[in-house]
Each structure stands twice: as structure tokens, then as C-alpha cells.
């Protein structure tokens, strides 16, 4: 289920410092000092970085204590009152997130009095993130075509458009149009615009030319995250197009356009001032691989799914005659009624 670009898809706890540095295409949108991670590290001051892909928080005293929360994991966010050791009762940003069947809650309080910046920056960015999924996710059968023309995304530039391209996914093949832009590759059927695919560069795993029963075909494989699809296209001067796509792929997989835009009112110097210079860290890089989350720290933020997280226990779903609904199989020897009465 992994996406080669994990930054916005995953939550990482106490990650090696190398993973906190911004990847290509990732942009620092705001950086706020004096933010407390009220849930897991109540009482410790830290820095909160808001990028176009994730929130990074690290403790001032010990940068090994850090969090990286990808926006894709955020279910909802809220601004609520809470109690911080550093500031007492104050307003805080609550994030409810889901990652690998577990739910985590994060609470960040800005320790600067009456500073709504933490909230305003984040809300602008998450809103932008949520409305720009087409830049990052594979979409099939979307409403992306209007009057036989591709609806362009903001800042999207079409490099080439090929007509008369056959999609070979169905038995008889479908004739349609093929677009290559700085964000994605799009194909849609001429006769049924609803039959289409929008494939961002970041979701492409492999590009090759292959023989098929329809003859030589351009084959695009999607990432595991997008379901390992194999898309076949038949078109004229296939070699040239293949070359073009491979060249563009190399550019955009390295430096993708993520589509998240957030204009902040603060002047740029201000951000510069509080930005922590990305010095190569003083810590040894213990683990360069994309290691899973640090479970010990994760416990602090867990709100549910603890068991499934650690034991990967598959719960069985049964139909309960007692209340006429699907329920998780109750523990041995217990009925729903008994369970309910215990509570």
C-alpha cells in the first residue's frame, strides 16, 4: 500500500532527522516556533513546520523527539480549548488522523499568546491539500473532461496532446485522447468522457513499450498505492512518445508538482527568521530506510485500534440477530446485551 512519496501519506514518530528534511517538490509554507505538542510531549517547546505535504513538529531540546504527520492521514481538524502545561488553558489545534488501521490524535498549542497563526496557516494549507487530490492521486472515471476537452488544474501545463489513442484495457479497445502535462497523464474515451484515467507522475511505477495482442503498446504501471494497475495504450510513433514520457517522468518524479498552494499574509522574512536551518544533523543516521513508525511514541497519540496496530488481529464481522446489525464478533461467551450492560 505504500506510495513512493510517503511524506503526505504517513505518520512517523521520532523519525531520523534525515526524514524531516523536505523532499523535492515539498515546500515549507510556514514555520512556527514555541509550539507545544500537548498530547505527547506536554510541557516541551518545539517548532512546527507546515509544508505542502505534512506537518513536522520537533522538540527544541531534543530533536530526536519529533512527529511527521502527512495530510492524507488527517480525518478532521478542530480548534478547541485545552490545557497546556506551558500556557494553561489555551486554544489548540486538534488533529484526528488514521494510519494503518489505527487512529491517532494530535494536539498542538501555540505558546505565543493570542497567536492565531498556527491555526490560520494550517487551515489554509489543509484546505488546499484536500481540494487538490487530482495532483497526487490516480483517478478513474472522474469528472475531469468537459466538452471533449480536459479540465486543466491550476498551474497545469499541457505539453502534448495525442488524438486517436487506443486504450487497451477492455476487450475491444477504446479510442480516445491522450494528454501529457506537467502534473499527470490523462486519457479519456472520445465516445464516453466518463471513461477516463488521470494518472499523476508520482503514481507511475514503470513505463515501457511492450508487445500485446493489439500490437506494440505503451504500458504504464501505477504504483502500489494506486493499485498496481497496468494501463495499455496503442498510438502512432510510439517510440517518440515513450521517450517523451520517460524524460518527463524523470523530471517530475524527482520534483513533483503537488498542487498545494497557500498564500500567507506574513511577509517572507518573518518565515525566514523562524525557519530552522536545515543543517545536516548531528545525529547518526540510524536508519535510512523508510522505517515504520516508532511504536513506543505512537502509544501517546493512539486513540483507538491499539490492538489491531500491534497484533494485526483480524476481527471477524458477524451479523447480530440481537440488534440486526453487523458487529465485530464479541469476545468468547459474551453477547451484545452482556457487553452493553457491563458498560
Amino acid at each position, binding site marked *: 500500500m505504500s506510495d513512493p512519496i510517503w511524506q503526505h501519506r504517513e505518520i512517523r514518530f521520532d523519525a531520523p532527522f534525515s526524514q524531516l528534511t523536505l523532499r523535492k517538490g515539498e515546500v515549507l509554507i510556514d514555520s512556527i516556533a514555541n509550539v507545544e505538542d500537548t498530547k505527547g510531549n506536554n510541557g516541551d517547546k518545539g517548532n512546527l513546520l507546515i509544508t505542502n505535504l505534512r506537518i513536522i513538529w520537533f522538540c527544541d531540546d531534543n530533536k530526536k523527539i519529533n512527529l511527521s504527520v502527512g495530510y492524507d492521514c488527517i480525518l*478532521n481538524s478542530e480548534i478547541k480549548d485545552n490545557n497546556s502545561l506551558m500556557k494553561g488553558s489555551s486554544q489548540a489545534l486538534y488533529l484526528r488522523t488514521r494510519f494503518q488501521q489505527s487512529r491517532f490524535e494530535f494536539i498542538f498549542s501555540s505558546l505565543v499568546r493570542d497567536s492565531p497563526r498556527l491555526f490560520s496557516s494550517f487551515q489554509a494549507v489543509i484546505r488546499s491539500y484536500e481540494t487538490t487530490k487530482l495532483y497526487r492521486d490516480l483517478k478513474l472515471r472522474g469528472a475531469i473532461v468537459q466538452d471533449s476537452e480536459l479540465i486543466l488544474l491550476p498551474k497545469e501545463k499541457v505539453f502534448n496532446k495525442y488524438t486517436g489513442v487506443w486504450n487497451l484495457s477492455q476487450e475491444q479497445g477504446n479510442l480516445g485522447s491522450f494528454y501529457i502535462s506537467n502534473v499527470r497523464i490523462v486519457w479519456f474515451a472520445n465516445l464516453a468522457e466518463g471513461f477516463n484515467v488521470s494518472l499523476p507522475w508520482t503514481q507511475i511505477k514503470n513505463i515501457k513499450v511492450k508487445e500485446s495482442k493489439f500490437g506494440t503498446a505503451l504500458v504504464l504501471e501505477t504504483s502500489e498505492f494506486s493499485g498496481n494497475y497496468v494501463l495499455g495504450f496503442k498510438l502512432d510513433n510510439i517510440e517518440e512518445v515513450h521517450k517523451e514520457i520517460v524524460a518527463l517522468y524523470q523530471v517530475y518524479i524527482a520534483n513533483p508538482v503537488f498542487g498545494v498552494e497557500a498564500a500567507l499574509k506574513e511577509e517572507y522574512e518573518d518565515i525566514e527568521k523562524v525557519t530552522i536551518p536545515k543543517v545536516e544533523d548531528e545525529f547518526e543516521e540510524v536508519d535510512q530506510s523508510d522505517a515504520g513508525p516508532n511504536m*513506543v511514541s505512537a502509544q501517546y497519540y493512539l486513540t483507538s485500534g491499539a490492538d489491531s496496530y500491534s497484533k494485526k488481529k483480524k476481527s471477524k464481522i458477524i451479523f447480530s440477530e440481537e*440488534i440486526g446489525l*453487523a*458487529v465485530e464478533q464479541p469476545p468468547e461467551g459474551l453477547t451484545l446485551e452482556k*457487553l452493553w450492560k457491563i458498560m
Partner: protein
Amino acid sequence: MSIFEIKEWWGKKVGEDEEFDTNNICVGNVNNATAGGNKIVVGSFQGYLRIFEPQKGEYKSWQLLIEKNLEEGILQVGLGIYGDSGEMLLAVLHSRMLVIYAVETVEDTTQLSLVYRHELSRNSFNFTQGMFGKARNELICVQSVDGQLTIINKDTVQIEIVLPDFYLPGPLIYAKQSDSFIVSNTNLEIECYRYSTLNMQVEARDKRTIKADWTCNIGEQAFHMHYHKNKNTRKYDIIVVGTQTLYILTEGAGKIRYQRRLDYPPSCIKTYHLNSASEIYRDENRDVDQIAEGGANSPCFTFLLGSFSNYILVYRDVQLVWTCKTSHAPIFVDISEFGGTEGLIVHFADNGWLQISYLGTEPPKLNYILPESKEMKYEEMEAEHQRLLGRILASEQDEKTEPDYALSLDYELSKVEEADEYIDDPDNIYAKGDSGRPVRIKCSIILNYDGDEVKNLMVNVNVPDHCEADKTVFSYKILNFGGQRDFKESFYIYARNDFNPVSNEVVVSASYMSPRSTSGVDLRTACKIFELPMTFNCRIIIPSNLKDPNKITIITDKDAAQINSFFEDVIEDLGAHSICTTPNVMSFMYHNNTIVTILISKNAGKFRVQSASFDALGYIIHELIKRINILYSNDVKVDLQDSIPLHELFTAIDDHFELREKIFKSKKKLEDRSYQFRIVEKRLINRFKDKNPTPLNNLDFLLNQTYQDMMNIANEIIEYQKDLKNAAHNLSSRVKIIQILLKYKFDISRESYKLLQDHLSADIHDFDECGWEEHTYAAMTHLLKTCLAKSSKESNASNASIKRLTDTAKLKKHLTIVCDRLARGGVISL
């Protein structure tokens, strides 16, 4: 409320920044797939129609069968057999259009094809469907926002009829058994219209308003209505959800047969039946068979209720049997089968979170956090501990360090002048100079600060009773001293013509926040006290009457001197050389025309201060002694021989106290009257509310009279308060004289004098319960029990609380004793 978890079977946030309502979703086999399988159709207010085919696990992009921008807001979607083909069709309601689509999936591609399309003449709100009038296919009835029902059968509009007295649209359902439409109206009622009645009226072109078959008042705005076939009672129920209540109405007569008040705001409902027989709640008072047969006084079905407090609650008949918390408030809840799993809960939030869930049965666990799990190093902890200990020690030992910068106050006084512009003086209280203009003095406060800026600076000016300042408060949010280091504020003090001067001190106090050099701010204060010049308070006049009744003699150990030598500056300022020709007499006149005269003995350093008014003496004595001390450079012994004028003090106390008593009594009376007023008012209101009012019996007269009384008493109190201020001033001036007399007569040291001033204060502050008399009585008692105690037996300082005095006899007695003890050499000390 418990909290079991709800487990996600499938979930997807639908749309990007789009909005949805209860009617914008439906579940069913919309594309008539032969394999069956439920799909979820969602239409957004932004006009996007999407169809999902969920499968267990995370959302995958192929699970979106179709996404189409219909380019007009979608108000409702519905599934039904609207045509002849017997196939399931999709109805989409836009504000001015109802479109029926057929949804087809061929291989991977799903397409919408238009079947019927109706332009609507009015803005629509919602629709309901059913086989109205026993039709073979399903018809659609659209309700417009202004109350028109449009019944559409396939490609024709069958009926268009406007409901009477319609203001706001609400939920609409079709009741199959009685073949009627049920709507909610703005009178908080549920109304039922028979299809046949509507049909006949339209066919007969009857212009009369249509009549409801029945109406039922539920007393709440209805938000959701459902039609439910009850398997247990074998009847049909109309389920209505209001703001706080669930109602079940019978279909035939529209009677409420069950209602349940909910302690949360409900957001959606789904009713269903269990296969098991134990659905109806039983106990000894309930005979299940009887309930099912006839007088069903309970729901007799199972239902899910969603709440805006993010819960889904499961009720079996009357019993709450399960509760779980959702991450978003559900506005739609349904039970459906997906991927072979029966009984899955589909719930949908207005922000687009669409989830299919099942109920978790694992009891909730607390996440215990083991402290060891955090990486901690002993050295670090030790270092922190030491650091904290150090900080605690430091804060215990250290005196509060003064901030680096402090604000200082200074003042400048101009010459006494007469106002050169018009000064509004409606009550004629300002003392006028020769030109008829008010006498005033310009006073400048100089703020000096060596730091950069102070915050929340507030300067208060307090002037004595006999004058008034045109501005007494100066406040600044931030005052920046950068560079100039001082800052000046000016105001005028005007003399009043109705009081003797008593105290002559102007008190200027400032409070401000001073930034610390490290971080944070300190709240600091600064204060400056200065005296107004004598020329401001009085003028010199030609002495005329040398036989005033009130006199006090000041004796010094120096030789006789000329009076002018004491008041050179005043004479200079007033230009009064021509008046001051007699070497041993000088008369001053205050602005209230009271004259005080000073006579000097020709032979010895004796001074006599005399005036027609005893109260007027204090100020001149104060000035004179001050000037004697200055002239002889403090090397002089001043003595006052007169007896302490306790009698005068006591009269003032009595006057003052009497007025306080009067005010106190009047306030009690006012309280009485206002109580009476409220009671009469209440009775009157009750009478007017009564269906059969009894005669007023002069209550109105009583109300009027009470009101008059209240007004009179209030005016009386205002008058007393004015008098009290005068009395307080007189008292203050007499206390001042007594203070001076005590000091010089008994040769009280400077420190003791300060204490005396604190105990026998010339500052009179009056409150109902605790005024000057109470304070002074308590202070005198304290003195007598402590430093002026006769024996150690007497000296036990008890902290009795200060109580309201009923008369002044005891106070007078104690004052006399204090004076006695001072005369015998008692010393006031702490």
C-alpha cells in the same frame, strides 16, 4: 454513555469542498447489475453526481463508478422503478428540474442516459415517490419551496396543486396504505392530504383551498419523516423526528401513539425490524401480545438514531441497546448489505464523509502510557532537577529586583490666573476672579522615563475638595519615550466657591507596565504629592473685624516679627503691598468669602488665628506653622495652648452621623417601597393574564402611589447625599484642626503624628455600613487597647469586626479618652 468503537468497513471523503444534506444520498443497485450489489449514489449541492461501489478495506480509485458534473446543484437523489421497463432508475432533483437517468455499466464504463426530464415551474425543495393511486410504476411528487406539489408520472406532469397557508417547506412522505401525502407545516403540525382529494380537486378545477385529511400538532419543527411498515402491529407508522423529540403517529387518524424526548439533538433516523421475536420490550406490566395487537404504546420496532453530538444510538423498542461514537455527525444513516456482509451501517456527514461501518465489541481500553517508554537519561534528569532546585532557591532568597528603568513624576505649576476662555459652569461653583472669570491654575505633570517605552500607563490626579480639575485621568496604551526622555501632560485646576480649603495636597499617581530587560513586564507605580500655592486658595484683604469668636493661639519661642515677613511670596504674587500696611494684622479671604485673620503679638512670638467660622482656621494655621518653620529654618518651638475643641468636633460628628442615619433609613424605605412595587406589579400581571380577570380593587392606584413614593424617597436621598458631602467636609476640616492642635499641644513626634493622622483620619469616605464614625471608633478602640492602654490588663488587641454604630456616644467617649491619655503623655506607636 458508553463507548464502544465504531469500526470502519469502508470510508471515503466524497468531493472536494462540497456540501451535502440528508436527501443527497441513496443506496441500491442503481445500475441494475445482474450480480446485484449495492451502490451508493451521492449528489452534492455543487452539482457533482458520484456513484460508488464499496468493497471492504480502503477506498480504491476503481470503486468510483462514475463522477459527473451535472452543472446544477443537486437537491435530492432517489432510486425507483419510474418507468415501464421495471428497471431501477435514478431520479435527480435540481432546483428547477427533475431528471430521470438510467445507469448502465458496460465492462468498466458506467454511463448515465437520460430517460425523462422535467422543467419545473417553481423552485423545488424535495420529493417523495410511490405508486400513487395504485399505479403500476412509481410516481414522483415534488414539493416546491412555496408549497406546490407537482406529481409526475413518467414523462407527464399529472397534478400541480398549491397547499394552503404554506410558509416553509419541510419533510414530505407518501403513505401507501391511505394513499396520501404527509407534510409538516409552519404551525408545527403534521398534515395529511389524500392523493384522491388532490386528484379530484384538480380535475374538477375546484378553486377552493384544499382541506387536510387530518392534522396533528406536535409542537416542534419536524426535520425527518419516515413511513414504516410495522411487522409487529401489522400497521403503518409515521415516524417524525423533531428538534428534540421522536414521535410515532398512526397513519389513519394522525394520532400520536408514542413520543420520546431525546437528550441530544437528533440528526437522522433509520427504522427496521429484527428477525427475532424478542423485539418488543417486556416486563411484568407489559403484555407483549396485547401491545402488538392493539394499544401499542411503544414503537414495537428497532431504530437507529444519529445525533449532532456525533453518536449513533440503537434502540430496540423502548430500550437503548447500543451506542457508538462517530467521527462526524451523521446526517444520513442506513443499513445495507455490501460484499456479502449484512447489516452494515452506512452513514454520511454534511462535509462529505461517507462511511460504512460495523459495531466494534471490544471494550474500550485506556491507553496507559508507561513512563519508561520515554527515553530518559539519569544525568539529564538530575541536571534538570538541579536547575529547578536552583531556580526555586533563587526565587526564595532574592529580593525582588527593581526593574532597570523606573518612571518618575514631576510637576510644574503656573501662576494663578483667570480663565481666558469661556468655561461652562452651570451650577456656579467655580470661584471667580475680579474679571468674573473662574480662577484656575495650570498644572503640568512631567513623566520621566529612562527606558524606551511603557505600556498601559495610567495617571490619576486627585485634587482636594475645594477645587476641581478639568481632567483627572490620563491613560496610554503605549507611551514611547525613545529619545526625548520626558513627556508632559497639562490640565487646569479650578477653585470652587463653596468649600473652605482643608487639605491642600494634589496627589498624582501613575501605574504602568515596565518591560524587563530579560523578558516579561512588571507592574509598577509612581506617585507625586504637591501642594497648591496659597494664592490659589485665598486672597489678602484689608483687616476689618478683629473680634471673631473662633480663635487659636500659636506660641513660639522667638521674638515678635512682622507678619509680612511670613507671607512675602503671597503678597508679591497678589500684588497686595498696598493692603498689607499693618505690621501685626493680616486677613485672608477664601473663595467662599470666609475671612481668617492673623494677629501677631507686638511683644512676643505669639500668633492668633481667628475667624467667624471655626472650620476655616485649619488651613491658615497649617500654612502659618509651615511658614514659621521656614522662616526660622525649623529652629523654633511651636506651641498651641488652646484647649482641644472637642465640642466643635462632636457637633460635626453628630451632623455627619445624623445625615448618614437619614440616608440609611431612606434607603431602607426605598427598598420596602420597591419590593411593594414589584409585588403589586406581579399581581397586576397575573390579573391581566387571567382568562376571567377579577376587578383591580384599586391595585392600579396603589401601583401609582408606590411609584410616587419611590421617586420622592430617591430625590430625598440625593438631597441628603449633597448635605452629607458638606457635613463630611466640615468634619474633615475640624479633624484637621484637632490633629494640628494635638500635635503641637502635646508635642507629638513626627512618626507618632503620622500614626495619629492614620487613626484619626481627615479623609472621610462614607459607605452605608461602614463610614468614618465606624472606622474612627475602631481605630480609637484599638489605640486604647494597645499603645494608649492604661495597664497591661487593658492591652489586648482583639480584631473585632467593624459594626455599624447606632449612636455616637461611645465614639465621643473614646475620642475624649484618647485626647486625655495623649495629654498625660501617652505616645502613639505601632
